[in-house]
Every structure is written in structure tokens, then in C-alpha cells.
């Protein structure tokens, strides 16, 4: 038997590392997905499961709302430039990162 070429060994090592990193990043993605989905679900009590309200609801659905628009509205509530009944009080309790997570989630959700 010939000894394995150093090139091949290096290639194998790199592949193994990449595979490992892939598995780790896949697990990380799944964790982030779960946490983000649960964070967005905190809006669903009023705005419907997955951001879809019941038919005829005056409270708007969030599913499919453009991300930039939603971030702007949430910040306008937070800063008091858009008047509201409750949203100015709710948004003041959220971090900018949470607002971003929520807006990203609903923008990617089908109406």
C-alpha cells in the first residue's frame, strides 16, 4: 500500500472542517429560526397567528408587510410621531433588534 498523499490528507481535513462548520451553522440557523419565530409570535395575540388576523378585523394583519415599512411604523409609534391607541406603549417596551426580528419575520410570511 502506498502512503496517502499529503495533498489528499489536507483536502480531507479541509472538507471535514467545512462539513463540521456546516452542521454547526445549520444548528445555529435552526435555533435562530425558532427564537425569531417565537419572538414574532408575541404579536399574534392581536395580529393573528403568523400575522394573519380573522376576517373583518380592524386590527391589521402583519403577514407580507414590507419590512422597511413595518420598521418605520414601529419606530414612529415608539417615538410618538404616529398616534396610536396601544402601539406607542407596546413599542416602547421593545428593543430595536426585536423590532427588526419581528419585521423581518412577517415580511417573509405569506399573506
Amino acid at each position, binding site marked *: 500500500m502506498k502512503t496517502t498523499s499529503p495533498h489528499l490528507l489536507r483536502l480531507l481535513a479541509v472538507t471535514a472542517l467545512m462539513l463540521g462548520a456546516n452542521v454547526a451553522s445549520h444548528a445555529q440557523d435552526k435555533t435562530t429560526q425558532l427564537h425569531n419565530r*417565537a419572538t414574532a*409570535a408575541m404579536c399574534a395575540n392581536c395580529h393573528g*397567528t403568523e400575522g394573519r388576523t*380573522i376576517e373583518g378585523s380592524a*386590527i391589521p394583519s402583519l403577514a407580507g408587510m414590507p419590512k422597511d415599512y413595518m420598521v418605520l411604523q414601529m419606530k414612529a409609534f415608539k417615538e410618538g410621531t404616529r398616534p396610536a*391607541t*396601544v402601539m406607542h406603549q*407596546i413599542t416602547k*417596551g421593545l428593543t430595536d433588534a426585536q423590532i427588526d426580528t419581528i419585521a423581518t419575520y412577517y415580511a417573509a410570511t405569506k399573506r
Partner: protein
Amino acid sequence: MKRRSFVQASMALGSFGALGSMVGCASVGRVPEKARVVVVGGGYGGATAAKYVRMLSNYQIDVTLIEPNGEFVSCPISNLVIGGSKTMADITTPYDKLSGKHGVNIVRDYVASVDPVKKTVTLASGPSIRYDKLVMSPGIDLMFNTIEGLKEANASGQILQAWKAGPETLALRKQLEAMDDGGVYAITIPEAPYRCPPGPYERASQVAHYFKQHKPKSKVLILDANQDVTSKGPLFKKFWADNYKGILEYVPQHKVVAVDAKTNTLKFDVQNDVKANVLNVLPAMRAGGIAVQSSLANVNARWCGVHYQTFESTQAKDIHVIGDSIMIAPLMPKSGHMANSHGKVTAAAIVAQLSDMPVNPAPFLSNTCYSFVNDKLVVHVASVHQYDAKDKTYKTVPGSGGVSSAPNELEGIYAWNWAQNIWADSLM
């Protein structure tokens, strides 16, 4: 292929046969020997936890929900049934979507006991179910024995609580309809904490609205064991002064110790007796009976201590307690909306734990609670509770939350839509 289908079909038939012998009711789910997640109680907390474990696991984790009632009857909005502007049908939602759409296995039964060591739940009808994770959401227990004579007076149907929405909601409405004009309706409120802080004041407002329209010589008397109105106080008191003057009277610091059903009389620890035509007595409350019996109510023997990041009991591993049963974090109300929020944080934590993923280090909870002061006008209180990893509790964010500036019709529309959306979010 054909042979495999046949085998599957006969296996399915086999389990269906077992269902028939165990439960004897086709509309009820089968009683499994084991479920990865068992949920006790199908209210705002339990139904939401069951649905969201299914959803957040992409329908990979099986859930069995144990609930004695055939339908969900909402406490929020039930005061409007008592006031006469909504019906029982308006506040009732079936459980069929939870099973049909989300695959939650619903077993209609009471839980007789929980064994946290063997990790089993035993049903009142006999069989036991093993679990990996148990969610306890049994709501509240009304402590009738803390008021002398109340247990019997309630059992006979004379002095109602109607605090657990259901048959008593309608029965209280009927008592008010039957009362002659010129009569007195008295509601008594226990010391906080109790389920739904603004609920008694909303109910008193609803009855006052009904009297104003239909029985103008009648009176509403609120006898509160607390120092003052416990929620939305200035808003309620201003509306009462402006709209129910001469109809509604608020009396703080009155703690009921006994009732005399023969003469419809309330007895207090200090003050003189009070007689009324319709008595609505709310006794002190504690965690639902099965939580107390399972030794989970480890705070003052009334409320269940939990690790707030996951809502896992401080008493037993792999048992999560949510909703009105828990020892609340500062400024956290015992409300349906809050229970729904608990259900989601808990569902996400359970899915993470059962999937070997880290639990969310920074969950948050929200609460919005609307109260109708008549059939159209509403006031709200809202709050946001962020988890504080250092102090291991939830804290309201300074500057966030608050109440309405005044009763208004727009929030009346939102309040009814809130109810419809949260019923769908919890149950459909």
C-alpha cells in the same frame, strides 16, 4: 406497497378499537400511553402552549391536551354577557381546530394525579399517560372555604361567582333580569392577587349600564377588600362619576368573612352587614386544584413558583406551569392575554429543550387588557415584560405600557377584534 398499506390500516383499526373501549366517545381523542408533551388545561395558556409546540416544532412533537370541557368559554368579554350586550355563543369557541388543523390530541377528562418522578399523568377515568414534558395550565381555584357559608350558597345556585365563565355567567345574567327595579346588585372583590385585576370593575360597569337602560331605580354596590380600585382606577372612577352617579357606589376596604344565604346578607371583618338582592361574591383565589394537589403551589401554598425563562416549575423538573396559577413576576397581571404569552414562551422553550437547542436567552411577554365601561366604550392597560437574565425575572420596560387617556369607541372596536383574534390565536 399494498401489503404495507394493509398492515398500516389494521394497526390504525387496532388503536381505534382501543379508543372505543377506553373512552367510549368518538368525538374525543384517544388516550395514548405516552406523549412527548402533555398539556393540562385548555384555556388561554394551555391551548396556546399545545398549538405552539405543534407549530414551532413544525408538527414534529406530539401533544396531548387534557381538558374536561367540550368547548372553550372565554372569561374576557363574559362581563358583556352579564351586561346583556353579548351572548354565550359569542364567547364560546370549539376545540375542533386545535385537533383538526394542528393535530393536538385532545382528551376530554380531568387529571386525578401527577407523578413527577415516573413522569405520568393519571386521568380521572383511570388510564395514565407518560410524558417527556408536562405543561400545567389549570387556571385558578376559588377558595370558597375562606368565606363562611359561601360554599353551600354557591352550590345551591343562590350566590354566584361567574368568575370562571360558563353556566354561572348566564345564571348571573338571569338573576339580574329577574331582579325587580329598585333592587341592589353587590359584587365583592378579594384582596389582590386574583384573576383579572380590572374584571370586577368592568363587571360592575356592565351591570350599571344595564340598570341605567332598563332598571333605573336599581343600584350597583362594589365592596372591595383592597385599599382602592386595583386596575385602571382613575379611568373607572371618572367614568362612574360622570355616567353612573346615583347608580354605582364604590366602597373600598371591605373584606367579606361570611354570607347568610337565608337573608342574602354579607358579613365583614369590621363593618356592618350589607344586604342585597343579587350577591356576586368573589372569594380569594389560588392555583388550580391539580397544581396545589401536585405540590406545585410552593409559594404561600397558593401560587406555583416557576423559573421565568422557561416557566419550568421550581418544584419539579420537566413540569412547566403557566397562566393564572403561577407566582407572578412584578407587575405581571393574571390575564388571558398574559397566559397566551406564557404559552408561547413555554412552547418555544420546550421545543428547544426537546430538540437539544439552547433556550431563548431573552424572551419577552406582552399584555393588553381591554375593559368595557358600557356596551361601546373601552379603556385598556398594556405592558411589555422583558426577561432579565441577571435577576432571572421579567421586568417592565421603563416608559413602556400604560392606559387609555379616556374611554373611547375606537378601542371598543379593537377590544372586540382583540378577543376574536386571541381566540383564533389560542385555539384555531
